């Protein structure tokens, strides 16, 4: 069946935001503003209380951007390897460290700027083995930038209790005092409250948009989603991001109503699990153009920055339903504490990607349910050497899915190290997989 296809009206808005984002960080000091750096999972509403001229640089999207520009990436990786960094460490982090060590900063279009703009402080979280240590060493490379990391490894959301939330809230309260100290600024709780509300809105809106992709034909394919989801990782507490997602939601909803799809021939739907090999996104194009195969969802793209109900209270089933915003939950945010409490609770409980670190079972349920809900014919898994957290459980999940009659293909690679990817082999894997399922190449 031939499907109507349209480019996204809001495409340029998203693209421009990304371009501005890296520029704003670069130029923040010229305008007397503040720069901070940290994981994309940092509690980004918290530094927002320092003022309206506070600009973040989140490390994972920066690492992905660097990886996309292969030649820059290889230089960065080799520079940091010479300093003793092991090749099997997080690919994003090595690109970031390498960038700092080369003293070169990359803009979204690949322009290289010297020197690397040092942050005023690093503010991060710690859940995988890497996060806090990433910024600890980056701070040393940068000559001793003040660094604060929040430990969030309290267990899965469905087992959350007051003491666990309190552990995180107390660290965030200290973080506010610390930020005041290192920046010399007075903290504005009203800005924090607004940012916390925006964060919840952005994350929940993105999950609502993802849900719309359950439609057949799918209104979005994953390459476009890469450009959309990343806002939840760049600066989700920014009102402009909320507006972007509101616009996107309306557009995707309208595409569903009008039967506008992502591909002209959608003959095969699949989901994915890991970050893609950023330097080789053509894998997706190959699947689309050769087989009419569309990636309709991904544990990574959906789970990283969106908020979902997740495991039910008994820890038995995964529920892919958007989590409530404070307004929808009837929770009133009125001061610093209630704001910090909400952002801690909301992320710990509903951020999908903070759940499956705690058991294979969670990841298995999460994945199988995605295959079902997004009406996928199969899953294509990236055995990604670049991230030990996202690669967690993958083989056990594969085994589980196969036992549940889900066709699975796997290919090896690295999300952010262009030297670790075998293009020909990957295409071979895809061809054999499609053949085994009886999927013909498009004429």
């Amino acid at each position, binding site marked *: 069946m031939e499907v109507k296809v349209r480019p996204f009206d809001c495409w340029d808005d998203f693209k421009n935001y990304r371009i501005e984002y890296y520029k704003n960080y670069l130029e923040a000091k010229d305008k007397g503003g503040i720069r901070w750096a940290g994981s994309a999972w940092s509690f980004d509403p918290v530094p927002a209380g320092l003022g309206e001229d506070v600009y973040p640089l989140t490390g994972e999207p920066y690492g992905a951007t660097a990886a996309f520009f292969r030649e820059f990436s290889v230089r960065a990786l080799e520079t940091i390897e010479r*300093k*003793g*960094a*092991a090749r*099997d*460490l*997080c690919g994003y982090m090595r690109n970031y460290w390498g960038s700092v060590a080369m003293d070169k900063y990359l803009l979204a279009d690949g322009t290289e700027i010297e020197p690397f703009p040092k942050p005023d402080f690093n503010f991060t979280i*710690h*859940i*995988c*083995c*890497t996060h*806090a*240590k*990433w*910024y*600890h*060493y980056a*701070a*040393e490379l940068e000559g*001793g930038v*003040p*660094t*604060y*990391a*929040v*430990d969030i*490894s*309290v*267990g899965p959301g469905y087992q959350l209790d007051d*003491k*666990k939330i309190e*552990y995180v809230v*107390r*660290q965030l309260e*200290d*973080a506010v005092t*610390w930020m005041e100290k290192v920046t010399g600024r007075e903290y504005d709780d009203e800005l924090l409250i607004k940012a916390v509300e925006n964060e919840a809105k952005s994350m929940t809106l993105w999950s609502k948009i993802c849900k719309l992709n359950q439609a057949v034909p799918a209104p979005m394919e994953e390459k476009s989603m890469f450009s959309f989801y990343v806002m939840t990782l760049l600066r989700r507490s920014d009102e402009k991001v909320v507006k972007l997602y509101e616009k996107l939601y309306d557009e995707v909803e309208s595409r569903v109503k009008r039967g506008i799809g992502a591909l002209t021939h959608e003959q095969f739907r699949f989901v994915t699990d890991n970050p893609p090999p950023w330097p080789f996104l053509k894998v997706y194009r190959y699947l689309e153009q050769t087989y009419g195969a569309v990636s309709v969802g991904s544990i990574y793209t959906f789970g990283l920055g969106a908020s979902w109900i997740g495991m039910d209270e008994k820890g038995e089933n995964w529920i892919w339903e958007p989590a409530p915003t404070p307004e929808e939950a009837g929770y009133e945010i009125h001061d610093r504490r209630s704001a910090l409490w909400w952002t801690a609770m909301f992320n710990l409980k509903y951020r999908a990607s903070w759940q499956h*670190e*705690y*058991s*294979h*079972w969670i990841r298995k349920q999460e994945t199988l349910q995605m295959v079902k809900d997004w009406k996928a014919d199969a899953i294509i898994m990236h*055995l990604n*050497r670049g991230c*030990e*957290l996202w*690669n*967690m*459980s*993958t*083989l*056990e999940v594969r*085994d589980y899915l196969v036992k549940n009659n889900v066709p699975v293909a796997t290919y090896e690679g690295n999300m952010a190290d262009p030297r670790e990817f075998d293009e020909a082999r990957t295409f071979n894997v895809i061809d054999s997989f499609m053949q085994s399922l009886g999927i013909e190449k498009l004429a």
Partner: protein
Amino acid sequence: MGKNVDDLAQLKQFKEWFDNRHEYAKKWKKKTGGKVVGYYCTYVPEEILYAAGVLPVRILGSHEPESITRPYLHDMYCPFCHDTLAQGLEGRYDYLDGVTLAQSCLHMRQSYFSFVDRVPNIEWDYYLPFPHGVTNPYAADFAKHEFENFKAAVEDWLGVTITDRDLDRAIEVYNKNRELMTKVFEMRKADNPPITGLHAMYMVVSSQVVDKAEHNEVLEGFVEELQDVENDREIGTRLMLIGSEDYDKELFELIEYGMNYPATFVFEENCTGARYFWGLVENGDDRLMALAKRYVYRVPCPAKDWARGDFFGRRRFQFIEEVIKDYNVDAVIIAQMKFCDPHELDIPALREMLDNMGVTHLHLELDLTQPVGQFRTRVEAMIEAMGEEDLFI
């Protein structure tokens, strides 16, 4: 004439426990009728299990080549994780009743989850969310909360109540073990240390797999006997080992007994060495808080050691610095398990610190089995180079 350490009955006992750890646990079970719980990381508050009459044993690998874990664990996870899971899959832990993990690195978790799912004799399992932020002031409070849950789960499983008296008894036994092993380590500051790294490894690892009370009895005798030991080996270069689960006897045999140049380990900063037992539980009214503080404030695993606002350093590095001075360390061997992220993440900064201290260091990447010849050449080259500097001066 003093005694030879290798002839000491206690050392032989440690070695026998190390070599036959599974047989020991099976016999213990038969003798006592108690339960045995395998633990995956040294952050597990063993005292709580011990207080309930359980024998906690550390899950270890065998350093034998295997291929049965490949369908479950990606090959980017460290050899220790593969090795431990392999032991479970091969039925070598068929006597375990339960298994637990105090939240540690992601690799170990993978192995633990698969172990729980795939080793059929496991009737009880517990994932303990131990804090990662041991450098932050709220970690002990949080750890205490998790220890309460852990204690309740153990009680529930066994149908017992763990009283304060039970905990006091367990803490006493464990503290004694720690004190005695610390005493042995202190003796290694001497110009002529009475034991080698291999001996220390037998002592510490055996303590992780046998009843601590029994271990203490032997250990007490060991401490006494060591006063009379006269070492006839040439100590040579005084080495410190920095690493993780380094219990591969071949590694010690190679470096301490198999090279053309004499060398002796005088300290092991790893979780089969000092990191396991350093630091006591300071007893107080609140037993679980006392335990929480000990585990949070012990020498941290690199997985948990990072900057946090007002504290920028690494606690472990401070400890390493002190040890280097106190034990008169000439050179450091960084024995890093292949693919081990927590250690790899510290290595650039660690190398820099050692360089700044003027301490020679060598980085070895450990696998399931070691390339002995290659390691020998590298360690010998390091020692040779150290000698060259002396020649020049």
